[in-house]
């Protein structure tokens, strides 16, 4: 009997457990997988995210003027599985904890995250290429960084330079 009153008293003090969501904001857990954000500066356009995407939501295509690569995530077919974030070598893709996904039908095909990965000319031949991000440079060339400027060259020029200079045995 006393235990019964304890429960009642506890519930009166605690108040209702219902969240007041549409009228008040409801915080999401830090690691919740919600809307995708893409950092175009860190992206190396390796197309790995497009390959692993379960829902076929990610499309990477060369832009019409060949000046860069259009990156598009259509949230209406994204399963928020997080494979793209897991496999991204430079961590350019991030799943935020923003879960406010409801939208009206008119926005259906505009409900996308769209970025543009700009190409830069190769310092040897001038051919436009996607620049390698600092994170990738550190992964390839180690802590001392890119001394010979190889990260600013297109793959062909890089191969030529390495062939002429031989493989350094540092």
């Amino acid at each position, binding site marked *: 009997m006393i235990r019964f009153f304890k429960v009642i008293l506890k519930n009166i003090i605690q108040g209702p457990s*219902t969240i007041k969501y549409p009228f008040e904001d409801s915080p999401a857990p830090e690691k919740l997988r919600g809307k995708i954000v893409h950092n175009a500066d860190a992206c190396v356009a390796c197309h790995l995210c497009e390959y692993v995407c379960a829902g076929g939501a990610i499309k990477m295509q060369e832009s019409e003027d060949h000046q860069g690569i259009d990156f598009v995530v259509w949230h209406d077919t994204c*399963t928020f599985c997080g494979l793209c974030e897991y496999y991204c070598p430079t961590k350019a893709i991030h799943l935020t904890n923003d879960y406010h996904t409801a939208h009206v*039908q008119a926005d259906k095909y505009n409900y996308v995250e769209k970025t543009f990965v700009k190409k830069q000319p190769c310092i040897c031949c001038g051919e436009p290429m996607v620049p390698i991000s600092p994170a990738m440079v550190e992964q390839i060339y180690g802590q001392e960084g890119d001394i010979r400027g190889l990260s600013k060259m297109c793959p062909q020029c890089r191969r030529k330079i390495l062939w002429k200079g031989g493989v350094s045995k540092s």
Partner: protein
Amino acid sequence: MAEFLQSIVKRSPWIYRINAGSCNGCDVEMATTALIPRYDVERLGCRYCGSPKHADIVLISGPVTAVVREKVLRVYDEIPNPKVVVAVGICPISGGVFRESYSIASQLDAYIPVDVNVPGCPPRPQAIIDGIAMAIEIWRKKF
């Protein structure tokens, strides 16, 4: 009299839910929004009803498979006007992971005029509450 009744009706849209070949993930989340005290969608004046003839807002989940399509359309026709359709989950919106499968001809809005989309796999209960709140606003404008 009719106006008086309409002014009362506007305060409580009833919800009906159709499973169009869903994997049950979105259905569980929809049940969660209604039944668990934490989310409690009945605060918005909504109530889940068992018959399509009492419904005002329809929540449809699932990719609309070839087998279930005719049945979905038949149930949809039984719902009285004005009605609002909410597509819950990515499957009815775009086909999701089942897109281009052998048993799925097209997504939901090829058959039924959809008003609100709630993407997610499954969407969070809060997102479904968001979608229902949007649907109620659209529904009130339809009178």
